[in-house]
């Protein structure tokens, strides 16, 4: 098998120019055929890491409607292409098989979930918001001061959401008269 023998990487390293074995000597046809997922992606989106508040730039590679890779954005002056263990795992975060993709509903006193249609769930939630608001409406407080509010509806969250989302959340709840609207910044 002289051909196989001559192709042996150690021999190529010793006889060729790549004496350190870090280039041509250790390449095989299989290596040469390998293409990075980032090169074959259909599209790439410029994004930002969703974990801590450093704000590392990310490049999100998509192929066939699936995220195939997330890397640090080398252009970002914040992270210069680097990501930490969590940022590096963010592809795993968004593609995790544990992600919920359907609405789950637990009825009062039930011992398990049932699936629920998204639009029906939205109708049910809207009904409950209206009822809670109507049932707990407070026009005046105990000192007869005008307060126009409900203390029956509370909300917690927002520190991992977008500014645009928080803006609509606060705007809608305020118009509703709901004031117990809080997020991680209080925690």
């Amino acid at each position: 098998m002289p051909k196989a023998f001559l192709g042996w990487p150690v021999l190529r390293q010793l006889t060729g120019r790549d004496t350190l074995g870090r280039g041509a000597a250790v390449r095989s046809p299989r290596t040469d055929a390998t293409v990075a997922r980032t090169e074959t992606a259909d599209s790439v989106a410029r994004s930002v890491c969703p974990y801590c508040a450093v704000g590392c730039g990310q490049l999100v590679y998509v192929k066939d409607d699936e995220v195939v890779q997330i890397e640090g954005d080398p252009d970002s002056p914040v992270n210069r292409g680097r990501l930490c263990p969590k940022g590096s795992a963010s592809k795993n975060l968004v593609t995790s098989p544990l992600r919920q993709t359907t609405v789950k509903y637990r009825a009062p006193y039930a011992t398990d979930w049932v699936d629920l249609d998204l639009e029906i769930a939205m109708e049910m939630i809207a009904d409950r918001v209206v009822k809670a608001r109507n049932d707990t409406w407070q026009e005046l407080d105990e000192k007869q001061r005008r307060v126009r509010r409900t203390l029956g509806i509370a909300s917690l969250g927002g520190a991992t959401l977008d500014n645009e989302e928080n803006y609509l959340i606060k705007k809608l709840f305020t118009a509703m008269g709901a004031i117990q609207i809080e997020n991680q910044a209080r925690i």
Partner: protein
Amino acid sequence: MAEAHPVGFQWVMEAKARGAKVIHVDPRFTRTSALADTYVPIRAGSDIAFLGGIVNHVLSNELDFRDYVVAYTNAATIVSGDFRDTDDLDGLFSGFDPETRTYDPSSWQYAEEQEERSAAQADDSGDTETQRETAAGLQSESHGMQVQGNPPRDPSLQHPNCVYQILKRHYARYTPEMVARTCGVSEEQFLEVAQAWAENSRRDRTTALVYSVGWTQHSVGVQYIRTGAILQLLLGNMGRPGGGIMALRGHASIQGSTDIPTLFNLLPGYLPMPNAEEHQSLEQWIDAVRKPGSKGFWSNAGAYGVNLLKAYWGEAATPENDFCFDYLPKITGDHGTYRTVMDMIDGQVKGYFLLGQNPAVGSAHGRAQRLGMANLDWVVVRDLFEIESATFWKTSPEVATGEIVPEQCRTEVFLMPAASHTEKEGTFTQTQRMLQWREKALDPKGDCRSELWFFYHLGRMVRERYAGSTDERDRPLLDLAWDYPTHGGPGDGEWGEPDAEAVLKEINGYEVATGRPLSSFTEMRDDGSTLGGCWIYTGVFADGVNQAARRKPGAEQGYVAPEWGWAWPANRRMLYNRASADPEGRPWSERKAYVWWDEAAQEWTGHDVPDFEKTKPPTYLPAEDAEGVAAIAGADPFIMQGDGKGALFVPQGLIDGPMPTHYEPVESPFRNPFYAQQANPTRKDYVREDNPMNPSPPEEHSEVFPYVFTTSRLTEHHTAGGMSRYVARLAELQPEMFVEVSPELAAERGLENGGFATIVTLRSAIEARVLVTERLSPLRVDGRVIHQVWLPYHWGEGGLVTGDSANDLIGVSLDPNVLIQESKVGTCDVQPGRRPTGPALRELVADYLRRSQGTTGEGERP
């Protein structure tokens, strides 16, 4: 920083490579300590004593940057002769009312040249009890102090009642000996830090202070940060390159959720939620913010407020109806998340939305959180995964103890799948106020939807249900400006995804008649001709361009990188950067040049957008009766403060005192070494049977909980675990809850490495694997040895890796300024072995309650 913000830490290492000295002060040796030049172990909860010691070192050796201090801080300002310090009153400032446990801050005010106190200053000396209840201090995040513009000053700093002398007296007792006794740090190590900090500051050099937001999670959290601010002002490290105070916040857009707040006491841009007592009209509300007579940019609050109302209620908001000010609901006290949880337990709340938040694991006193949720009519959980806050009715520890019985729990739960950060577009605001736009990579799968989608459609449907209502109380919903354009994916037709850029444009603000986006908040008018949802964000859509989407590579720009994203306000990357130049407008030194006055061009220029009116010369002196922006002198860098000066002493806006003072944590094994006053006297407590606190001296039986514990993050997990315990790669890296203990404590309590330990407080008991490590070392405090234990707080019963939640150990006691809980220090007992399961768990806790006779009901705490 290397643990929780590793990529940010690369810049610390860059600085170290260029010769910077890195000092790490932390109860536990971490990856940061490993890379620091000096590591200083410290007792959790003693930071004011430590930093106060450095303030004392600077002042008693006159190491302050005197030119900066005299010109830019309130060091020279003379304080009222009525002021009494903690030295005189054994740990209290003058004005304390033991009935309400609040201060009347009248005696803390600046002295008056005239008989009568100026309107600006008098206005805020009112009801501090209300201010505590409404976390009024948080509004000052960008408000600054509203004090008189030109208080009496003594630039020689010799007047006995000038701030400099008061400060010097206040910190005189924070000697190296007292620091050592209180913090468990050796005098030598303390002096090494103090000397390094002082030597590396002033004209040619600057020192940066970096803290992670565990600092805010103390009953004296705001005063921790204040102590850092005092030190950095004294040493001339504010508004200058390489200086400053960096708050490392922990969530992708927690800065954004404070700027555009989902917080009970704030509206966008740090405008206060109106309260029923003081703000029954638009004028009262605006005046409360702008404080007539004050200096600074808050004088334009009328425009900021009107633009917000106009953005909310559009055409319905007119000058004739005060722009619908009356539509805003009014707050009347504490409506914070912890108060709300207590109200849930008491049956006063019907429904609860959880938006990417997991309080069953992530909030203090997990048991109270879960019992509260189990007593609601309904909960809507919007998340990527089936987190513990969605399953409290079937898997929580209280189901095991029998306190929650699924068949008897009436709470309806909707678990709504959320879109991830790659499946929607929008902006995050990172920890240095920079907004970065994210492009959408792909549509979310199945029923996953963005919050933008959820709330837009919820609003649409709620409004449909009220359509035709003639009830006046429904007008705020019916008149709401809620017409956002939608586009394709993920929903179709009427269920389309709202256009996030259209929302960002409304946040930025525009001319109502033409739709032209505003370029600066200075273009906002108070007559209804412009609207804008968050004045500090105005400019993010300048020239009709989404500035947050800018991506000029860092390598093609200078180190400030102003063309990457957009920072509020006005794309300034460093706040108060006028202070980087001397009063005449020249850089303090060539080495530290950042922003300066260009005499030839007659304007401010430099590496950053100057945080100052561009053409106001350094020599500008305001007329005596000037107000607002015109009253800011050319040498006043702190343009949001009522007197234009950096505040060493804070006459207004703080509930617990004008200067930081060491108080022991609410739960501590020690008596306060400094004063008779043990803990923060003004802290917010919830004295209830379901929120007992471990006893502390001078109460009896504190020895039942002999150890100090603190918590923090692991590199491989994220807060309450909702984004990491469900992620295989991360779960594998840190698979199990553990507790770190020193070899000495392990020997004392018979703990085995790899075995289990049970950690007990009066709230609960949890178990964790034991990691015996020298990363924790016993400290000598107040003459005896104290052991500290450390816990990560990422686990719950859900996800790929499960474990007990450290937050179950923590009781609810809050900082009075911002109503944030003390969750970074507490006392506990540690026993070898696993905790009991089922009802026996509560019996164990009850036994500790009996032994410690904890304060569960009535009675004042020290």
